[in-house]
């Protein structure tokens, strides 16, 4: 359900915003998970679009960091399948590839090129999902 950040005045648990990462590079998933948790988010990471969609169907996600180039179902198809219901930012090594541009066209909020610095990542996330 989400990590608890603390309790507010009414004694209700404050939950951390949930950010999903979809990227088929395992070490990027790991690094991002550690990073996101360190800067005050809860991270749910997926190496395939399919598993992300399965999770997203049943769980609330505040924002997804999506790499357009995924094996199996690609990032564009993922975006389309979830009917643009989750705010999406792109993190990719191929900023000018057709898939990336398509995803921007379809409505991704931001385009970040790897390697993105922690500062930039944090600013972008703060903009769309205050922690």
């Amino acid at each position, binding site marked *: 359900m989400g990590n608890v950040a603390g309790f507010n005045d009414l004694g209700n648990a404050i939950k951390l915003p949930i950010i999903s990462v979809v990227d*088929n590079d395992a*070490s990027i998933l790991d*690094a991002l998970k*550690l*990073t996101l948790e360190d800067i005050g988010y809860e991270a749910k990471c997926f190496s395939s679009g399919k598993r992300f969609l399965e999770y997203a169907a049943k769980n609330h996600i505040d924002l997804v960091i999506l790499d357009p180039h995924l094996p199996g179902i690609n990032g564009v198809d993922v975006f389309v399948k979830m009917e643009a219901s989750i705010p999406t930012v792109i993190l990719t090594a191929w900023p000018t590839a*057709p898939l990336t541009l398509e995803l921007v066209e379809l409505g991704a909020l931001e385009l970040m090129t*790897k390697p993105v610095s922690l500062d930039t990542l944090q600013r972008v996330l703060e903009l769309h999902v205050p922690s």
Partner: protein
Amino acid sequence: MPTDLPDRELLEAAPDAMVVVDQQGEIVLVNRQTETIFGYQREELIGQLVEILVPDQARLRHPAQRKSFAKAPHQRPMGQGLELSGRHASGREIPVEISLSPINSDNGSFVVSAIRDASYRREAAHQILEAKQAAEDATRLKSRFLAAASHDLRQPLQSIGLYLAIIQRQLEKKDDVDDVSDVTKKMQSSLTVMGELLDTLLDISKFESGGVEPELTEVTLQILFDQLSADNSPQAVGKGLDLVIVPCNSIIHSDPGMLQRIIENFVTNAIRYTEQGSITISASEVGESVRIDVTDTGIGIPQKDLNHIFDEYVQIDNDVRDRRKGLGLGLAIVKHIANMLDHPIEVQSIEGNGSTFSVFVPLVSSEPSTQAAAQETTDDDASDALSILFVEDDPSVAEATEMLLEMAGMRVHHGADGREAMKLINNISRPDLIVSDYRLPGDNGVEVVKKVREQLGMSIPAIMITGDTSIKEIDQAGLADSVILRKPLNGDKLITLIHEMLA
């Protein structure tokens, strides 16, 4: 016969075929070169329509072309920019270049054609065009590789960048050192990936620019396998995988360095795409060849991708959909090397079960020849190759010490702890000496040495490295045939000690 035509001897000496044609299109005069180029005796041509020298498909148009020239006769090349052909007596087409000149005389108007055999020039032009095309293709290919590789480098850079930022924050928060250490370890695999990518780029420049010629010789496969095992065991072991070499006694014919590159690439990929189980290197004789297999228990390759697995993998201007990280570039290079060596390669795979990559090499013989035996002894003599099992968990100390020992001509097999040391023992031949740090994660250095000796069934000399605090402990443990060396490590002292203990 017109009398005011050019001097006959000049005509005869002309390097081109000279054909004089009257207003009706009949040939009135030819020279020797005409006979040579078109394969006729002149008597066969005089009085004939000039179309006899024109290939079938152009024949219909030619009279109209003559008429058109006659309307505005002036000296000019014929069919500028076109590739013209003439027809030899045998029926074959000859590439030609033709110049036309009108001549007026008392007997009427004539046209002189100077016809040059352009076979050589046209062939050369085609070859240049082909070479240009090939060069452009190669450049395009190289650009694609380079662009793909440079984009690929962004991935590990991203991981490393994030890990560093995390470490920075951990240090500011004065987090636990072990937590920081965990993150630094994770950076290692990203660095390895970058290293491999850069190696691949180096390969591209070496092999694609044709800077390498294979040097074929007899190769003892077992020696190659041993080298591969030594080089790749740490990586496999680090991932919890077994690297198994099936012993073989085949002698084959190949370039050892290039063949090693091929098999090593298979092994690296196998390690990368296998999460659990083993990677096996083996060889079997098939007729006059030896088939070298690298089999893994990894994630496998989908059937539809198997056909393209060796293709260079990405079209930048098109689609990176099918990109395989690292795999595509590496295997394309492997294919290139295999082509240069004329060694067929193939792959079999079952998705979810594993893959086998194979390379076929020519068999020389099945028994170690005297030459191979000599090869082994020379190796030993040349390098004085003492084999050291080195157990040290601090990566930078390990690296520095390893370098030191290797520069002194020793073969170093490094494990970060007791578990890795035991796995190494299974894969390498018996070490001459064990150098171990005392403080290790899991079993301490003394326990590790004891276990190794038990496994090998012999008492291998050992050097125990330690800071001041542990000396008493080690003494009490009573490890036979061992010497304690204090930190900080003095390189010369270590090397001298190793030699003394083995003297």
